[in-house]
């Protein structure tokens, strides 16, 4: 387990940040997709909303639980958070919190989808991705 550094927490609160989450497919290839809803819940845990029954969710549900998230902080900074998938929340407080915030937003964007579940990730490592310190471990 690793404590998420303050500057990463601040970046996750930013509207303009971009998060890309990668999981490992059955054949060992990588699935890499943008995830807009990543947020910290506590010092060592991230959560994000699953709005599609896609390959990311499939990989996690099938037991390939290791993930890496690249976080871009405009204009030139970045972080990588590595972690382990913990649980898929299909109901409860966390699910309700994400649903109440995101479902109206998704509808407003004209998208025919809603929050299906909320995934939680236990953070294990955090690295800088900003040149010239890219690769340095932060936590």
């Amino acid at each position, binding site marked *: 387990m690793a404590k998420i550094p303050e500057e990463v927490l601040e970046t996750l609160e930013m509207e303009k940040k971009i998060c*890309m989450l990668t999981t490992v497919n059955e054949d060992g290839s990588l699935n*890499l997709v943008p995830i807009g809803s990543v947020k910290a819940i506590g010092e060592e845990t991230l959560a994000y909303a699953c709005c*599609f029954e*896609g390959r990311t969710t499939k990989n996690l549900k099938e037991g390939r639980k290791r993930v890496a998230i690249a976080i871009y902080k405009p204009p030139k900074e970045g972080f990588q958070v590595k972690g382990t998938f913990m649980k898929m929340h299909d109901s409860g407080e966390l699910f309700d919190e994400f649903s109440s915030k995101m479902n109206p937003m998704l509808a407003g964007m004209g998208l025919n989808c809603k929050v299906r579940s909320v995934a939680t990730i236990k953070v294990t490592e955090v690295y800088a991705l900003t040149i010239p310190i890219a690769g340095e471990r932060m936590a």
Partner: protein
Amino acid sequence: MVEMPKEVVEALADFHALKVVATVSPGGVPNAVIVATVVPIDRKTICFADLRLGKTKENLTRTNKFTVAVIRQNMESYQIRCSFTGYEERGGFVDTFAEEIYKKIKMQPRGVVTCTVEEVYSASLTNPGARLV
């Protein structure tokens, strides 16, 4: 090897688009880093500069697989699955590419990674996961 659709080539060539490269270790641990220098060479091949590649380079040479994701400012996004084909430190193409990189960011690449495109998917919110080729 497949040919990327025109819109995917354009997205990769977009200097303002965010590009992320994901690799995996032999033990199944993924790694995802921002690589601003990813560009298409043609419709079947992609390259990027080694400015400070650590785990990414190590994983590439050991497992051969990686995925590039690109997202443009209008949120148009694609996922490109690739096979590693080579790492060159110098030579005609590498020297030209390195010169372009240096002009833009004043950093000298240690080498250039090249790969072939194997599969392309949409990662846009309007069509997530759809296989394009």
